[in-house]
């Protein structure tokens, strides 16, 4: 998970230690730019493509991780 968390930290411009499954995306500027960056990050780390509309509905990092697992299972 660490490459993914590092990438998220970069997207939100915060320290990687702050990223956890409970991390609140919506409280940290979860805008279209962050979503597009996260689509690319997931593609890079997991070779999976998630939909922007599905990502937009995520509230926490755990929600994003669930989405990745779903994409991996598909």
């Amino acid at each position: 998970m660490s490459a993914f968390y590092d990438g998220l930290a970069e997207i939100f411009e915060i320290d990687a230690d702050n990223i956890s499954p409970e991390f609140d995306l919506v409280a940290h500027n979860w805008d279209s730019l962050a979503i597009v960056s996260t689509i690319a990050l997931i593609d890079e780390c997991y070779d999976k493509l998630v939909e922007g509309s599905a990502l937009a509905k995520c509230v926490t990092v755990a929600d994003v991780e669930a989405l990745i697992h779903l994409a991996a299972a598909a």
Partner: protein
Amino acid sequence: MIAVPTQPAQGVQAGPPQGLAVADVHLRGVVSVLPSRRLDNADFETQFGRDGVADVVKMIGVETRYWVENGQTASDLCFLAAQRLLARLEWPPDSIDALIFVSQTPDQRLPATACVLHGRLGLSTRCQAFDVGLGCSGYVYGLWLASLLIQGGCGRVLLLAGETSSRLIDPNDRATALLFGDAGTASALERSRGAPPIHFVLGTDGAGAGNLIVSGGGFRTPCDDARRPEGLAEEHLFMDGGEVFSFTLRAVPKLVLETLANAGLERGSLDALLLHQANRFMLRHIAKKLGLPEARAPINIDRYGNTSSASIPLLMTTDLAERLMTEPMRVMAVGFGVGYSWGAALMALDPLACAETLAA
């Protein structure tokens, strides 16, 4: 080795088993023309604030772009490019058998802008002229059509690709206002016995039509634009950046690999991958995913913005001009976006007689 999905990605169909290819066609020269009005990012700070500009620029990577003045059109830029190109190649106007104008910003609804350009350039009445209304993929479709016209008997074809997207954007829409630039280009293709085949892969996914659209100005009234946000006029461009981005990641790496496979080539044999300059973040991501260093997937969106159908020829006449004029190069042009529509053309180019960029 990058992972290649075993199933076709959603919206991307496998091409014909043998692939598409046209031999005996050579690209002789390319000229690009930029409008004279240059806009820096600082010019947008009053509108969006310094941070507002910085946020978008970090993603799209555009530092400067060139916009037309009122009254100046894509065909004006293409006309200048074509005039210069014909002069440099010493091709008499009456030696041109076909003119293709690729644009989504034509001069008028009718006649086809290609006919007006035909008149301005003084081409022969035996010359065919028609418009193609594609954007990001348009240059590759233009190469495909020009090659087929040559295969059908034409000797020389002028391919003009130009766009003035600055006239379509809502100046208050941060996502698009900073991204686009204007440019006009001219490319000259000629029948040349023995020229190696140009390999093409082309495709469309109309399910994505609504994600990048100007719904007004046509004949479907009221326009079919349920997704147009409040406050965006129907004659302005709507872009769902996230959806277009996902489409690109699904379609483009696969398109590049399929085109290479059709030609029986490895990635390492490409001298340059000429990607439509859509967005710098996206371009870097695609290059990385394909394992290509930035030197072989050049990026000039920082200087010119996204110029739609003009972006690939503009890349050729800027960053690659010197190499294209002095050495043979194996390049793949890859256009993708509005439509959704996409295409790739893999060409073994002889040194071009002319590759240059001019100011209008």
